[in-house]
């Protein structure tokens, strides 16, 4: 089986999805007419409007939300029906054939970092949650669902490393992705995840960034840099461009320089590129939240932009889960029989390696990095999409020979940054997340590197947080600013004084 399609099986087919929605609608109707305890914030209903989103955000830290969760009822019938409709043969088999051999234990960084607590063994984690849900035919109580929620979000980052070490190829990461969907349906989802999924539903972006904000911010950034790079522009909604560029809303909200940097590199490489006015958000917190319907909405929105603008290729920003959501799994959510997005879609590292390889971008060899550098392999496009060599090819262009040092383990064996799968964003599980960062901290320390290049937003954040938490003196960076600091500017693109 193509490893890239791993999660596809976990995601609902269209038919099952519509049944799921019908059921959801029925549930909410049912709710109005009876006394099933549903909280104001914590309930089985997704966030659909800006007002609801603001109200939920107003519940600081999810205080009331988690209070309400304590008395949230489980809709056993819906839960069991959903499991019956969506737990397909692969996962059923996985649950049954697990030999409890324990080979997965050492593959899990959360097991290792938590003093090899047997309750952190992946096989145990999935058997005690999904396994039990199936065994009990969905007849579980509130306390049980609390435990499932904590296991699904604080004891698994869906890094899929265990799947590589299981003799049967059982991937607990995939199964927890599925379990999250069940939790979400029943309202047992961390506060920030519910907000994140709601953001996608309301804004088609993971943060409250509108289409206008996106275009305006991109244009602003280009204005700021156009004196340094004459002719710099952001072509918006250009049909038939070679590249359609998609981003992470956080770049627009907090790090808009990233947009300028992307524009600069496309400009210097002489690319014919564009951004869509709508459908520019590549990420999917809905995926982290287990909000399957929002996953579908979000990715279809991006695909619509591809279909509207008909670019030759789509290039996504330096983000791991965005790639997984839009390129690897999205086609299945959207029910595309090809298993592929409407146009060829690649990760930023693939474009960058190609531009450097083909000489579209030339590095000034005197400006290459001359300090110990290591590379963070993002689970979502390395283990899950095989891009392990291409990032190292980039290293060979931008790091002075002799200065690149691997982390151990690395490539598809690399550990999660410690904050994957939404872990970074969940306040309730902050202590667990901070502990999880220790794995990466020690890997970095052992590598001897002073700088870690991290072409993934989530890893970038986790490494920043681990520096804040443990102060090991590591520096971290995306690729774009590094490449800009060493790229040769073609004569005709230089500013004229």
């Amino acid at each position, binding site marked *: 089986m193509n490893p890239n399609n791993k999660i596809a099986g976990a995601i609902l087919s269209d038919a099952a999805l519509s049944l799921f929605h019908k059921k959801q609608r029925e549930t909410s109707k049912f709710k109005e007419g009876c006394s099933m305890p549903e909280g104001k914030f914590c309930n089985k209903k997704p966030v659909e409007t800006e007002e609801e989103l603001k109200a939920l*955000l*107003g519940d*600081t*830290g999810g205080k009331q939300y988690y209070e309400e969760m304590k008395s949230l009822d489980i809709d056993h019938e819906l839960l069991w029906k959903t499991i019956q409709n969506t737990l397909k043969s692969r996962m059923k088999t996985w649950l049954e054939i697990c030999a409890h051999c324990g080979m997965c234990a050492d593959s899990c960084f959360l097991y290792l970092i938590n003093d090899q607590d047997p309750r952190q063994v992946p096989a145990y984690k999935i058997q005690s949650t999904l396994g039990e849900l199936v065994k009990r035919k969905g007849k579980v109580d509130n306390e049980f669902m609390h435990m499932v929620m904590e296991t699904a979000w604080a004891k698994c980052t869906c890094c899929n490393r265990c799947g590589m070490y299981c003799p049967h190829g059982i991937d607990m990461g995939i199964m927890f992705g599925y379990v999250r969907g069940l939790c979400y349906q029943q309202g047992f989802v961390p506060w*920030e995840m519910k*907000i*994140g999924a709601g*953001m996608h539903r309301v804004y088609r972006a*993971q*943060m409250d960034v509108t289409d206008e904000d996106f275009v305006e911010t991109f244009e*602003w950034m280009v204005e*700021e840099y156009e*004196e*340094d790079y004459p002719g710099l522009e952001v072509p918006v909604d250009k049909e038939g461009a070679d590249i359609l560029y998609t981003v992470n809303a*956080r770049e627009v*909200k*907090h*790090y*808009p*320089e990233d947009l300028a940097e992307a524009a600069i590199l496309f400009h210097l490489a002489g690319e014919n590129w564009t951004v869509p006015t709508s459908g520019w958000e590549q990420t999917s*917190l809905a995926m982290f939240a287990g909000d399957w319907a929002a996953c579908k909405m979000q990715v279809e929105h991006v695909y619509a932009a591809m279909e509207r603008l008909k670019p030759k290729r789509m290039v996504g920003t330096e983000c791991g889960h965005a790639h997984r959501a839009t390129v690897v799994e999205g086609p299945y959510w959207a029910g595309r029989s090809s298993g592929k997005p409407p146009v060829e879609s690649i990760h930023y590292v693939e474009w960058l390696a190609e531009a450097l390889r083909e000489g579209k971008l030339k590095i000034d060899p005197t400006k290459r990095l001359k300090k110990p550098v290591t590379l963070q392999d993002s689970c979502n496009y390395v283990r899950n999409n095989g891009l392990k060599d291409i990032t190292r090819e980039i290293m060979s262009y931008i790091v002075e020979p002799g200065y690149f040092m691997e982390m151990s383990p690395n490539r598809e064996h690399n550990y999660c940054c410690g*904050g994957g799968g939404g872990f*970074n*964003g*969940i*306040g309730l599980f*902050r202590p667990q997340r901070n502990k999880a960062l220790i794995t990466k901290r020690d890997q970095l320390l052992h590598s001897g590197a002073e700088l870690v290049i991290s072409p993934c*937003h*989530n890893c970038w*954040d986790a490494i*920043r*947080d681990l520096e*804040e938490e443990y*102060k090991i003196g590591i*520096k*971290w960076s995306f690729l774009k600013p590094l490449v800009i*600091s060493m790229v040769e500017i073609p004569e005709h693109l230089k*500013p004229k*004084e």
Partner: protein
Amino acid sequence: MFKKILFATSATEACDHAARVAFNMAQSYDAKICIFHVLGVPTRGFSQVVLDVKTKEEVVVDDEYIAWVEEEIKVHYSKQLETTRNFEIKVAIGLPHREILRAARELGPDLIVMGGSTGDDEDSVYKKSLVGSTLQRVAKVAPCPLLVVNRPAASFWGGMSNVIFGTDFSKASDAAFRFALQLVKTLACELHIFHALDIGSMHLGRIMTQDEIESNIRESLRRIRGRYIPEMKDVPEYDFEVWEGIPYVEIVKYAREKHADLIIMAHHTQKASREDTRLGSNIEQVIVRAGCPVISINR
């Protein structure tokens, strides 16, 4: 010419001198002052958790917290606010330079006022992961003149009578000149045009002869006469000089000699080299050293 002032402040002592100038100007020129503060940097991706710049603690930001920070700012500037009619307080979350620039884009101020370095240690929240200071980043691309008050001695403003315009004859300097000209006309003060001939870094490894220096000075004076003087018909009092030396030192010396109330200089838009990110250029050195406010203009 100053109707809207954006005062970007850390709301700490580091900005008190800048505050004095900012509020003074707001009162003198009947300007609206927007007190802008970035309360924290978002720490965790999409979560609501923010690292507070003052306490360096993680806080969960909500309306209540923002209201509390606004109240703190009011308290910090209570004295000044007593006599300020037209003001607003704005609080934002994000990386300071970016949010200041965002606010400037939204507000369209005539002037941004900032303090100098907060002098924070390495663990300052402001310095997280970014090369260079907030000030540098704002100065580079600010859409309007940026006034910086770094030293306590520089905080005098009132009855402005002597303005220095430092030029290196670049395009950016022309923009700075236009602003200086407008300012001295509006405020009716003296303009002192100054150029420093760089005999330090530019000719490393070679010592200029005195003849060379003097001929360069004559050439620079000729350029000032040709470039700026024709436009100064309405300026009753002005003079110009060219000195040789290390430019930023000479400007600061000249300003001292002229009892300057303000220095106006261009900030070059060319990227500062990555290795040399601590206040590298002349204007940045002038900001650090000058005994009066410095206005930086980049376009």
